[in-house]
């Protein structure tokens, strides 16, 4: 569907909504505005800005003009002191830009319900899988990795049908439009560089073929499991020097970094996956596995798996586990892959509810070879029904050639103030 076609479809949905009697529309909304400041004590080769301020406003509106029809719309407004946000005010619906959009349509969905069938069409979120830390089967959930540690999910555009009969669920997804994960900016600290080189992204190209997936789930008495299949593209790209632009240009006398033309390629990906959650007497055992193959040259075939334990005790919630990877065919040169990058790691999180308004949490990841360590502590305090302040500190150490360790200069503290409505 072209952009114009999509606009017509959206207009039709809005018109349908408008034609319904106002009295029959229960309307709900939710949202927040958040100001956030981050202090990085250390400089990196490509980034010496130590203080970054960020603003995010998000609002979502839900209406039900008919018993069988629900409409949802959501938008975001962003600003940033470190050039992470596009200057243009044009509302962005594709979420394909290198920069975060100033204004974006976060959600635009029509949900039709007929008996056991639910159909969602439009811009929406699709989440698969059961584990929390690394989710191998969550293939329709690209993320914004501009700040790798504090990433957020991006919506996708397409159609989702779910048939729920008793304990069985059949979930089918078709995405005609590809949404990539948003990568760290090449000239900023979350793209670690060495040796005086900086990447410069050339005109992006995205897969044009649709993506599809199907998942069957069963919720038994006290346990859940599902199996899934996905055929599409990896929303995390391979990163290759673009030789069509010639060798890197070195300006005589220049003392700045050398720019290398970079091309992002999104490899074809097929996944066979499964996930399960089994509560035992002492904890809940969760597992998830995905086996990935690719027909794209220079892309790996691999298996990602996660085993996770969960337990609540008093005011504590504990989650801990191991994420592993087995490469069955190694072909890739360079790829930005936080899912694979955080595998072969022991990962854990503990949160504590101090009282009705205050909570604290710590989380961490340690590579099994000890080459990368990440730890985060967070304290959060609510004030009244709307305000919340959150203070967090992130500590990262490791080797430059380790996925976690490469961000060793990016330890930081952050202060966020949020007003929810």
């Amino acid at each position: 569907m072209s952009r114009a076609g999509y606009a017509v479809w959206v207009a039709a949905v809005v018109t349908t909504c408008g034609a319904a009697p106002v009295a029959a529309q229960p309307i709900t909304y939710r949202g927040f505005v958040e100001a956030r400041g981050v202090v990085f004590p250390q400089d990196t080769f490509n980034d010496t800005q130590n203080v970054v301020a960020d603003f995010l406003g998000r609002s979502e509106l839900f209406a039900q003009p008919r018993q069988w029809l629900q409409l949802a719309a959501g938008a975001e407004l962003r600003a940033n002191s470190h050039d992470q946000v596009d200057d243009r005010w044009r509302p962005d619906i594709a979420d394909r830009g290198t920069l975060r959009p100033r204004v974006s349509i976060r959600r635009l969905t029509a949900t039709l319900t007929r008996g056991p069938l639910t159909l969602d069409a439009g811009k929406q979120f699709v989440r698969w899988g059961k584990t929390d830390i690394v989710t191998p089967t969550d293939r329709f959930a690209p993320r914004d990795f501009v700040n790798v540690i504090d990433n957020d999910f991006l919506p996708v555009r397409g159609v989702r049908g779910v048939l729920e009969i008793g304990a069985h669920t059949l979930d089918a997804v078709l995405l005609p439009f590809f949404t990539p994960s948003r990568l760290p900016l090449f000239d900023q600290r979350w793209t670690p560089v060495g040796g005086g080189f900086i990447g410069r992204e050339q005109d992006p190209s995205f897969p044009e073929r649709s993506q599809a997936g199907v998942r069957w789930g069963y919720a038994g008495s006290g346990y859940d499991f599902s199996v899934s299949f996905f055929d599409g593209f990896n929303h995390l790209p391979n990163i290759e020097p673009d030789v069509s632009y010639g060798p890197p240009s070195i300006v005589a006398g220049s003392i700045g970094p050398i720019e290398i033309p970079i091309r992002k390629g999104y490899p074809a990906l097929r996944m066979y996956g499964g996930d399960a959650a089994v509560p035992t007497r002492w904890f809940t055992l969760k597992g998830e596995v995905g086996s990935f193959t690719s027909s794209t040259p220079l892309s790996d075939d691999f298996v990602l798996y996660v085993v996770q334990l969960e337990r609540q005790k008093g005011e504590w919630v504990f989650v801990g586990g191991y994420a592993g990877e087995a490469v069955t065919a190694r072909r890739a040169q360079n790829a930005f892959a936080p899912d694979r990058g955080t595998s072969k790691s022991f990962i854990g999180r503990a949160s504590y509810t101090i009282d009705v308004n205050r909570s604290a949490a710590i989380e961490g990841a340690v590579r099994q070879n000890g080459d990368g360590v990440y730890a985060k502590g967070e304290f959060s305090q609510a004030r009244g029904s709307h305000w919340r302040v959150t203070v967090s500190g992130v500590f990262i150490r490791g080797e430059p050639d380790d996925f976690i360790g490469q961000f060793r200069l990016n330890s930081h503290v952050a202060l966020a103030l949020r007003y929810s409505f």
Partner: protein
Amino acid sequence: MSRSGRPVGSGRSGGSLLLIALLSVAQLWAQDARAIVAEAQRRTASQSQHYEGLLQVFDSKGTIADKRWTLDRIGSHGNSKTILRFTVPAEVKGVALLVVNHPNRASDQWMWTPGIERDRRIALQDRSQRFFGTDFSFEDMEERDVDQFDYTLAGEEDVEGAACWRIESVPKQTKTSQYTRSIVWVRKETYTAARIDNYVKNEVVRRLIYSDLQNVQGIWTARRLEMSDLRRGSRTRLTLDKLVYNLPMKDEDFTLQALRRP
């Protein structure tokens, strides 16, 4: 003859009669207790229920935090399904809980968190945890069913001036529960619960008081429920607003797919 000079058969017979008499009384009381609870359940049965709840959480220092939810229930007691959605405070707006009750075992529960767009099953061993910072636990969000417990009539007592039966209920083996037993006070006049003391071993850990009794569409309903966590020293008051019974509702609005619809 026995050494005491009494005929053995006579003594055994007398003991048996006493035992039989005691068992009969106990059985009668047990039957009465079960009958009372069954009658209470019959009188509160409805096809559906809807209300808007105001939750006020008072911690041990007296600090108040307000939360609000809407609750829809289809069916009654062990054959019911409930969806509960938070509306206040703003930061938890949209968080929802689906409870599928069963007549013969513990409920199945799933929680939807819009912030991460995912549902999560609440494991049985986590049901004793506090429900969203309130003094209700996840298990307390279940609908109790008469067939899930064994009952004993433990006496009669007044609760806030109302004559009540005092009934001990012990969960059956098939009903996984954090509570070892509960003492339930049932008002004689209306067959409604007045108070429940929930025990873990021999300690009362949570106390639920029902008050502000009103007849809504022929069903006597407590409009105010106050749950105290006696170990934490905190309490949560739930006030039921806009309570309506027997609204038309559909089964398909009580599924995992319905849970993620705001």
